[in-house]
């Protein structure tokens, strides 16, 4: 067996690592820019790295650091970050049935859920645990490592936007979405999610449009 991690013939951890590699580069680059932003926001060297390790969610960390930098206060920073991360509630719920082991191990594995690993791990409407863990670990190494590089040597690194890396994320999600559109009800869920996000983005704060868009999954509750 060349793949000892996949006795059942399904994807192994390495397949998750491989699938996440293209977006891992972008995660590293944005980790660097988070480190730079956090440093200039007066967060010091250690706190941004600890935050990348424990929160492990880019948009929420950027929001919290920006609010602290602007003098917005702790409560506003925490509220914005938590609102942005509420989408991990439904994402974690959809991963729940595939996680194994005692409660602490399942809770620990669930920490590897981020937008990109969750999206890459989709298989036939369910989450594949091996893909989730492989992709999640690679993204975590890139994100935390990038943050460390950013706080230590941020001035030496190019702006990720000038490399177009901010366009890599919507492209990844579009590619994975294309693989998800099988049948009319999933197409409806996608259209519903996009429309809800578009409608709320101009009026609601960051985070709200995405958590509201998850309600479009209810089109799948009709079948019994």
């Amino acid at each position: 067996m060349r793949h000892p991690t996949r006795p059942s013939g399904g994807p192994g951890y390495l397949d998750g690592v491989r699938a996440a590699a293209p977006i891992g580069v972008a995660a590293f680059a944005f980790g660097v820019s988070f480190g730079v932003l956090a440093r200039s926001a007066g967060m010091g060297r250690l706190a941004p790295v600890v935050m990348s390790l424990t929160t492990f969610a880019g948009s929420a960390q950027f929001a919290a650091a920006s609010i602290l930098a602007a003098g917005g206060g702790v409560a506003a920073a925490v509220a914005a970050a938590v609102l942005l991360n509420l989408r991990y509630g439904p994402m974690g719920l959809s991963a729940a049935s595939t996680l194994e082991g005692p409660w602490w191990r399942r809770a620990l594995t669930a920490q590897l859920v981020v937008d990109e690993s969750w999206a890459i791990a989709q298989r036939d409407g369910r989450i594949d645990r091996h893909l989730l863990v492989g992709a999640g670990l690679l993204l975590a190494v890139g994100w935390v490592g990038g943050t460390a590089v950013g706080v230590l040597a941020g001035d030496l690194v190019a702006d990720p936007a000038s490399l177009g890396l901010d366009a890599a994320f919507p492209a990844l999600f579009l590619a994975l979405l294309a693989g998800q559109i099988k049948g009319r009800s999933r197409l409806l869920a996608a259209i519903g999610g996009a429309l809800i996000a578009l409608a709320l983005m101009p009026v609601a704060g960051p985070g709200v449009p995405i958590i509201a868009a998850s309600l479009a999954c209810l089109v799948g509750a009709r079948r019994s």
Partner: protein
Amino acid sequence: MTAVWVTVAAVGLATMAIKAAGTLLVGDRTLPPRAQGALEHLAPALLAALVVSQALGGSGGGFAIDARLAGLAAAAVALVFRAPLLLVVTVAAATAALVRALA
């Protein structure tokens, strides 16, 4: 400095709790078919919302039209030609970088 650590601790603990809530609440119980059906439609709904917000979202909320949209259009063309994921992502980044360099 204390404010920084309070923020880091609060956001970290809240995020870890949110991520773990699903598996801790459901455990190894099987969900009712309707709930399972809804969860199987979560990926297309959320992925579509992520495409929209990542391609069009401004840094402080609202819309911002910039080179990301050109990158996304290039990615869509690559997808029509059934390009592999690595190529789709690379084409998007290269297009956005090119548009920014020319602008």
